């Protein structure tokens, strides 16, 4: 399975503000242990660019003085890092047992129908994608979904609340 998508991998530049944030993170660890900053830095990169491209990973490797492969192996291991571009709003719905007991599967069906795209695909307007994810530790308030990069939670979902959320996000995007 192709995990890293290079088709849209245009060179990236890290702004001075972003690099300053990197520096703040690196200062949390002992001298020489700057690799510890890798996961938090990848989150910042994804928040900035919407996904984690190969050129971005190479630049992170340069910044942390580690090999490129050390970044690739981490970025592909953890489920939160997107290896290809996503919709502006990625709806991540919990699909694990406790949420399914209270109707998560029906919510996913509804989202698929509402957005008209399959899991992992992007709507033609580039606004939305969706996928099922594993337990989000909100089992008492299911069904739940989250939307990055803030990872805001939407709990006790119903078809109506999902419709409302999608129209709110559309309105937000057009402003």
């Amino acid at each position, binding site marked *: 399975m192709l995990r890293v998508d290079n088709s849209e991998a245009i060179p990236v530049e890290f702004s001075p503000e972003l690099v300053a944030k990197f520096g703040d993170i690196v200062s*949390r660890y*002992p001298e020489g*242990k700057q*690799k*510890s*900053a*890798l*996961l*938090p830095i*990848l*989150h910042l990169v994804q928040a900035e660019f919407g996904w984690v491209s190969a050129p971005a990973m190479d630049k992170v490797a340069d910044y*942390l003085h*580690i090999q490129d492969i*050390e970044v690739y*192996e*981490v970025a592909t*291991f*953890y*489920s*939160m*890092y997107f290896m290809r571009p996503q919709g502006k709003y990625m709806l991540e719905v919990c*699909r*694990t*047992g*406790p949420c*399914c*007991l*209270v109707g998560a599967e029906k919510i996913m069906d509804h989202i698929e129908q509402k957005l008209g795209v399959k899991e992992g695909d992007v709507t033609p307007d580039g606004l939305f994608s969706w996928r099922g*994810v*594993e*337990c*989000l*530790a*909100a*089992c*008492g*308030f*299911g069904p739940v979904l*989250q939307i*990055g*990069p*803030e*990872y*805001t*939670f939407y709990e006790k979902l119903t078809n109506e609340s999902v419709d409302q959320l999608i129209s709110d996000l559309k309105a937000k995007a057009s402003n």
Partner: protein
Amino acid sequence: MARKLLLEHINVPGINTFDVYRSKGGYAAVEKALKTMSSDDVVEEVKKSGLRGRGGAGFPTGMKWSFLAKPEGVARYLVCNADESEPGTFKDRYLMTYIPHLLIEGMIVASYALGAKTSYIYVRGEMMPQIRILEKAIAEAKNKGFLGRNILGSGYDLELYVQPGGGAYICGEETALLESLEGKRGNPRIKPPFPAIAGLYGCPTVVNNVESIAAVVPIINEGGEEYAKVGIGRSTGTKLISAGGNVKNPGVYEIDLGLPVEEFLYSEEYCGGIANGKRLKAVVAGGSSVPILPANLFMKTITGEPRLMSYESLAEGGFVSGTMMGSGGFIAFDEDQCIVRNTWNFARFYHHESCGQCSPCREGTGWMEKVLHRLEYGHGKMSDMDLLVDVSKKIEGNTICPLGDAAAWPVASAIRHFRDEFEWHVTNGAEAVTRNYGIAHYADPLPKVEAV
């Protein structure tokens, strides 16, 4: 109503801010520990309390602390495991969201006890809102002199940082968590050496769950012996239980260990029974990895004793007829839930979350998922149940970390207790995709066995 040790002030408006938390007696444990106790005294109190790790393993926290190696000139670390990912568990999220300073206070006291000068709270990456809450709380505490250099004039220095994960269940395993904190894939390490000898950056390290660290605060405030008076037997103190699934009142409850399960499940103070007036079919008592029990075996042990919410009582009967306290992720299944579908769902979870390091787990979790998928969708064979048990037995105990066991137990226990439902999925394949098996006899009272 039982006294709350952790959540007493959770509903106080503004308790997430330093000032309100302080006005409710917050940070008294830091003052007491740093001003009047040696670090060994703190460890001793925690030992006396009988506190057991609240993340799932239930290992005595004080003992874990006393194993920490203290070589001269080598840094020591305390790492808080806030990678809460066990399906059914959401207590740590709750605690960090509403009363973050309790965790910060516990971290300061525990770090002092262990002699750590830098400590990390490893929070699962999806909990970005909680990460922001904790970072704000840390900044407040630092501003008030409870973190940083020379805390409260005691000469003790501590820096506390929050580290986000990247979305991987396996990082809740302590050595995988340390790998992740070092910026690597979350592959668990072979033990020994244990983290107490060689943990973060090869230095002696203690990894504790959020709730364990929070419990240190009441233990220091009231003394270990007082804390140990709450609870029952070796299950001392209070425990946060995340109640979910088909209970009427889902949420996080702080219970005295030893509370009868019947009271927890049916009293209005806690779960309030099963939602929509339905009957209870099954319970997963401690997070998805512990054995599932049918209603009758959950309410009473095989010998007919009422079961209690304690480490010992839940485990009564071993794997044959008992389960485990685990992380306190309490999932109730009503009469309309399908055990086969849920078992498949959990198997998919473990397959997805296996790190891939050990072949029994990497391959076995995938096989179990596929076999359960065909059973759920009406294409199973009668031999599949034995096949699943066989695969689960070949994973269990044959992997570096407990994820293999965690994947094996739910499958093995579901077949042990609900084999007739699995068989019905084979014999009535077409029907099984349109309707559920129902409650069968699982909720019946146990037959009374008379000695002859």
